[in-house]
């Protein structure tokens, strides 16, 4: 009796965990390891316009990866911009502001003068219009 109750509880708990994992899966999709590595080693950086840029000399694989990510970013920007009644460029620029703000020390970002800067512990140099 007690044992069966225990099993029932365990079963429920396991089922709940699986359901949670399934629900959470799309939202928590993380960076591809190759992308994470390219960010960390400074091969790629965040541009002001909301897209990923190539900072250091990169092989074909990295260039393809950057192109692919930027196509996907553009699609997301276009969809959200339309929903918000804004232009693609406005939305992308706003996302760029935020993406630069979210870089972590060591990663690269594009400063308002167009130069690549390595993020330190200090706040990044951003466009004065950035929130």
């Amino acid at each position, binding site marked *: 009796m007690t044992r069966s109750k225990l099993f029932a509880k365990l079963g429920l708990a396991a089922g709940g965990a699986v359901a949670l994992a399934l629900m959470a899966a799309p939202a*928590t999709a993380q960076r591809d390891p190759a992308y994470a590595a390219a960010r960390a080693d400074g091969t790629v950086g965040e541009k002001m316009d909301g897209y990923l840029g190539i900072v250091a000399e990169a092989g074909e694989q990295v260039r393809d990866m950057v192109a692919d990510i930027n196509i996907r970013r553009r699609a997301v920007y276009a969809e959200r911009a339309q929903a918000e009644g804004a232009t693609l460029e406005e939305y992308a620029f706003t*996302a760029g502001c*935020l993406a630069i703000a979210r870089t972590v020390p060591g990663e690269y970002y594009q400063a308002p003068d167009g130069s690549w800067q390595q993020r330190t512990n200090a706040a990044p140099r951003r466009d004065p219009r950035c*929130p």
Partner: protein
Amino acid sequence: MTTGKLTGPLCHAHKKRMTWGITGRMIAMAALVTGGLSGCITLEAPDKPIIIELNINITQEVIYRLAEDAGNTIDDNADIF
């Protein structure tokens, strides 16, 4: 605050005026002096690349309005940001 926004186009416009003001007049005078012997005006390309600031028309107001949604978009698409 607006310096970054305005420097580019203003400088460009200024340079353009200067070019036409001095070079243009000199070429016109030279053409008069030589009595129309040379009918060509040569325009030299600037040595520095011309940078067209496409983001110039994006206002701070719009950016602030979009910021929250853009933040959520980044969170929802963490694999590409």
